[in-house]
């Protein structure tokens, strides 16, 4: 009853958010000064105005904006993201083929940063004031201030150029076509290490700081004192009464960071030539590929909402109070 109601209200919220985002994106993209028809024409080495006019006609670029807008919204509803003139492919296909790598990257980074953040944050919080705490806090402070793309480059410098442990760029080995699935998975995993660590590191720093503060706060809470008064061992108190309680706010915050995570993925994908949505975004911005951009922003925003829901779900599992309210 209440669950259904909350689900309905959630879905309405999401639909509304998507509509607004789609509108914002459309307005933004269409206030661009460049003419996409010219680019297409330029790329085919064409030089005549008639040809350019033809391109405009063919792709509806000569229509008034509201016609383009209405047709765009209609298409969004029917999950048709349009056709990229420049890439000569359906936008949904283009995005779908890039979605996998981006999901792989962001979700691994998300998981890694959460696990690492909770672990290091808990360690620092428990050992408050010791050298371990100091070292972790300092590392977190530094990482937090590090430009993500630079951090990626430094990892490349150390781990691929100097130590040659991991490949510096790309998604899979160029010979991957001949690999067995197992080899392929391992190969992708090897390529994933540096980008995922890069993307995770910054957020891990954030979560570490948060977790540390949260754990210290929880450790002062009355129920921890109760647990002590019950005669529980410190380990049991930590596992049973502190970690879960402290991780809650961290997870909530992580959900809010989903947008930033996707933004970070854009830079990381650029640094590591990761064939995901981020690179596609940048390529499309430079190429003024409107349909792709519109589709990308929609998909990315949905992705962010999805991650939000996911963290919401995790938080529900961790904290029974949320579902019931």
């Amino acid at each position: 009853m209440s669950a259904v109601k909350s689900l309905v209200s959630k879905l309405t919220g999401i639909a509304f958010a998507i509509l607004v985002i789609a509108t914002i994106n459309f307005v933004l993209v269409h206030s661009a000064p460049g003419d996409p028809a010219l680019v297409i024409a330029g790329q085919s080495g064409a030089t005549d105005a008639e040809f350019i006019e033809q391109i405009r006609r063919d792709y509806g670029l000569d229509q008034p904006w509201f016609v383009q807008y209405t047709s765009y919204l209609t298409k969004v509803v029917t999950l048709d993201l349009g056709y990229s003139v420049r890439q000569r492919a359906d936008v949904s296909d283009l995005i779908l083929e890039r979605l996998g790598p981006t999901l792989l990257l962001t979700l691994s980074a998300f998981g890694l940063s959460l696990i690492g953040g909770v672990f290091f944050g808990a360690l620092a919080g428990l050992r408050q004031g010791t050298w371990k705490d100091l070292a972790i806090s300092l590392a977190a402070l530094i990482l937090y201030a590090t430009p993500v793309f630079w951090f990626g480059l430094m990892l490349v410098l150390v781990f691929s150029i100097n130590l040659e442990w991991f490949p510096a760029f790309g998604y899979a080995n160029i010979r991957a076509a001949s690999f067995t699935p197992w080899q392929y998975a391992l190969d992708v995993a090897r390529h994933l290490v540096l980008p995922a660590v890069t993307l995770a590191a910054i957020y891990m720093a954030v979560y570490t700081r948060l977790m540390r503060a949260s754990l210290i706060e929880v450790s002062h809470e009355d129920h921890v004192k109760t647990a002590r008064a019950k005669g529980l061992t410190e380990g049991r108190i930590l596992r049973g009464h502190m970690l879960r309680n402290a991780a809650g706010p961290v997870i909530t915050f992580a959900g809010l960071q989903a947008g930033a995570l996707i933004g970070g993925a854009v830079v990381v994908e650029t640094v590591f030539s990761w064939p995901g949505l981020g690179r596609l975004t940048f390529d499309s911005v430079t190429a003024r590929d409107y349909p792709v951009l519109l589709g990308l922003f929609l998909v990315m925003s949905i992705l962010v909402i999805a991650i939000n829901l996911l963290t919401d779900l995790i938080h529900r599992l961790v904290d029974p109070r949320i579902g019931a309210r």
Partner: protein
Amino acid sequence: MPQFLKTFLRRPAGAVGLTLLALVTAMAIFAPLIYPASPWEMSGIPFSQPGENGMLMGADTLGRDIAAGVVHGARISIVIGIASTLTALLIGVTLGCVAGYAGGALDSAIVRFTEIFQTIPNFVLAILLVAILTPSIATIILAIGLVSWPPLARLTRAQVRSVSTREFVQAARCQGQSTLSVVVRHVLPNAISPIIVLGAMTVAAAILIEAALSFMGLGDPNYMSWGYMIGAGRTVIRQAWWMSVFPGLAILTTVIAINLVGEALNDALNPRISRA
């Protein structure tokens, strides 16, 4: 405010942060004195190693002095960091104040708008804005400001709401003070501290966004910036690590400095709010 200053400086974070920040600021202000020649000057020997040919941090592929770039780059980072934060503050604090104090339908409309704005990956939005408006200092400041305001708006709203329900504000209303006077004299002064702290953190974040934009080739091409230098060094990282390393360290130092100052500010400002 001597008490405040004392608390602030007693924190090692505050002292270290302030020193580093002063260093970077001095670098920005005195850049033309330290390196009078343009950082774009291609007079050195390409690919000089750090220390070679009289170049402290080496030279890039065109023979430009990396050290000169690092020093001059401080200007753009600081200017953009501060200006875009002011933009974000202007938008965020205004919306937050209105939402927080007015409440009701206006409040929920602003909250929804802010929530949705926060859902859009903000860096991607910044890329889009800069690309659309064509990269220049002004458009970069505007774009970063436009993507940075939602947290400020949320915080301001939360602060204003929490402060304005506090009993001393109600007491002030009961004393017959006008709404404006209540907001300006009681609500804002008591709400502002965390906003100042977040503002400081926003400067740091703005510097990082600027660097990332420049790295992606969306910087103002007329100003030497750290992100641009790292971007230019990326492809030649095998041949010239120094091209990427030093500008990165500069960003790192500046951002750490600001974050430390922010943290110390937080510690110095907050006890008065919660305990006083």
